[in-house]
């Protein structure tokens, strides 16, 4: 019958399509080293100790440290070809949840574990518990877009009032007092916050609460607790809004504050206003103290630093692993990778990517802890 012949032809076509798709799978390549500047930092890889590790290493969490992880992975892979690290930057909370459910080898988080999370971790870490290892620091810049104003100094109280909608225009007296030389326009202030929950919001509001508790009545947290205000999704989203909107101000990781976004200099306890830079963030982290118990190295930042050049709105990203009882099949790779990123080479890479290395004193403790992981 005619129809059947057609069917056979359709089958042939289908078979052709399938074999074509199969042929396609043979022609792709993972080798991107020779394109663009993908291979710009191909030194220092020889110092990495692969520890005989193999296989896929799953990790997830903070998107703030994504670029740092990218740079590390590029180096690490050139030394340890047998390890495939897949870092999924879907947020600190998701990272911790996945880790506590035993899905991942480690998590990246912008906030230290909460007590109840440590309690829960005892299940996945078998009798031991999860610990925070501070690995990456980064300044949270306050970016603004006010035509004609090239530098702007603000303090914690003014910032809090701006984000709390108490200061409504750019020529407000409080801003004028801090910037006697600037020509401030009368435009309305458009303050943007993150619409998604985020470690960046958490750290920014912690700063506001810590440095200006009277002006900032809201509890710090990953979601924005103040009522109203405009918002946008993700750091890239708020950065885009600041770029588009005259009179806008928002907070974002330093690496997003570029292409026309200027950043606020912060008036702290020190004499001179502090710029949002990588070095200044490192200085602020050096001022912090360890609050974690035992091997846990959770830090508490000092939000009213008096040291010159310490930029207090700083975010520390922790890698979270089990102290003991890590999964046997990924332990070697985890240790090897963490040893590399906490080591001298790994930390040295951070500055190029716009992150702040962890100060030596804390870093030494981190390295010792990693050595003892099991």
């Amino acid at each position, binding site marked *: 019958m005619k129809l059947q012949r057609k069917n056979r032809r359709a089958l042939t076509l289908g078979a052709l399509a399938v074999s074509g798709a199969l042929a396609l799978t043979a022609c792709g390549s993972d080798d991107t080293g020779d394109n663009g500047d993908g291979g710009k930092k191909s030194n220092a890889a020889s110092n990495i100790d692969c520890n005989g590790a193999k296989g896929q290493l799953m990790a997830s969490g903070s998107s703030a440290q994504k670029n740092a992880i990218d740079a590390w992975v590029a180096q690490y892979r050139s030394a340890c070809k047998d390890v495939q690290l897949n870092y999924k930057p*879907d*947020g*600190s*909370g*998701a990272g*911790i*949840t996945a880790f*506590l459910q035993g899905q991942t080898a480690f998590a990246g988080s912008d906030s230290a574990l909460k007590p109840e*999370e440590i309690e829960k971790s005892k299940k996945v870490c078998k009798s031991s518990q999860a610990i925070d290892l501070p690995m990456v620091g980064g300044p949270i810049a306050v970016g603004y877009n006010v035509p004609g104003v090239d530098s702007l100094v603000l303090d914690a109280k003014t910032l809090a009032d701006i984000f709390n909608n108490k200061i409504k225009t750019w020529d407000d007296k409080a801003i004028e007092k801090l910037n006697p030389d600037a020509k401030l326009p009368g435009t*309305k202030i*458009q303050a*943007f916050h993150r*619409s*998604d*929950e*985020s*470690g960046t919001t958490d750290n920014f509001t912690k700063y506001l609460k810590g440095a200006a508790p009277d002006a900032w009545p*809201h*509890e*710090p*947290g*990953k*979601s924005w*607790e103040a*009522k*109203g*205000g*405009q*918002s*946008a*999704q993700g750091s890239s*989203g708020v950065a*885009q*809004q600041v770029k*588009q*909107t005259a009179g806008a101000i928002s907070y974002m990781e330093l690496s997003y504050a570029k292409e026309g976004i200027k950043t606020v200099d912060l008036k702290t306890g020190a004499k001179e206003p502090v710029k949002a830079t990588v070095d200044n963030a490192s200085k602020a982290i050096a001022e912090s103290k360890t609050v974690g118990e035992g091997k846990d190295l959770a830090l508490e930042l000092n939000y009213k630093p008096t040291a010159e050049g310490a930029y207090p709105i700083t975010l520390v990203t922790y890698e979270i692993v089990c102290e003991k009882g890590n999964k046997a099949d990924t332990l070697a790779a985890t240790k090897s990778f963490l040893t590399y990123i906490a080591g001298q080479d790994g930390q040295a890479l951070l500055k190029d990517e716009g992150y702040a290395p962890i100060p030596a004193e804390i870093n030494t403790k981190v390295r010792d802890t990693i050595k003892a992981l099991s």
Partner: protein
Amino acid sequence: MDIPTDTPPTPAPVQDDRPTPAEQKRAARGATRPGDRIFLGLSRGSGIALLAIMAAVAAFLAYRTSVALADNTGNFFTTFEWDPAGISSDGKPVFGIAVLVFGTIVSSIIALVIAVPVAVGIALFISHYAPRQLAAPIAYVIDLLAAVPSIVYGLWGAIVVAPNLTGLYSWLDDYFGWTGIFEYQGGAPRSLMTVGILLAIMILPIITNVSREVFLQVPKFNEEAALALGATRWEVIRMAVLPFGRSGIISASMLGLGRALGETIAVATVLSPSFVINASVLDYGGGTFAQNIASKFSEADEYGRDALIASGLVLFIITLLVNGAARLIIARRKEYSGANA
């Protein structure tokens, strides 16, 4: 005036389409031959498999929701707050969906109000107005647009569309601001209205596609009969095409509404959400179920996720009610469908 659909003297309802609960009636259904039995078994099996999957999902949802609601200290339906971590209330979770219900319904209504007439217009254009050589390519392009992923719509909406809406909103504020609905305070135009417009564009291809397909199925003799009576093209459409296609249009709109209600990434990219209800659709603020889930999900702890799932369940139920209503309407109009429906 309605032209009765031209059904030839309908044969008495075919016996093998009748309800047959009992075993012995299987013969009457024509399921006696082995081929028929296998085929019936296969198709019924698929239906049951689908039911089983659904039941599993529903059970999962219901269980998670019950976990979330057990500890909620706010009223789930009337609280204007979303704080399952209890940040501002000493660790006691407080969350409610009032804002989300409002935002979801408002943005979807805006989307439908804009999209349905336009989509039906385009469908008619393709099926009845466009020059023949144009119709096929246009239909193809529209098909294609249904395939644009929502993240691309979001990208485009946030970068290209939203910045251009300030003028329109100021204009609406000037002339219709007194209604309260179209008040515009300035600020970035990332409101429920913007979301509605973007959703309208997103669901346009779907509604168009399905309506067009239905319009093309209108029995030719119905149209020819109307033409023979001297009807103009518009009268043909009004009397033969639209009545026949009504259930199709409703079904298409529902598919569109389903997408609008559940649209996630695009809304999250474009909207400037906050947990307040605002009478004006032009001012920023508000939120939708799916957007809220997407925005809060990644940083939520396990309980926070349960709370979000609870809101997902409500989205579910809303969709269900909408679908149910549409089913009723379709059932009432069944006489116009030429087939065995």
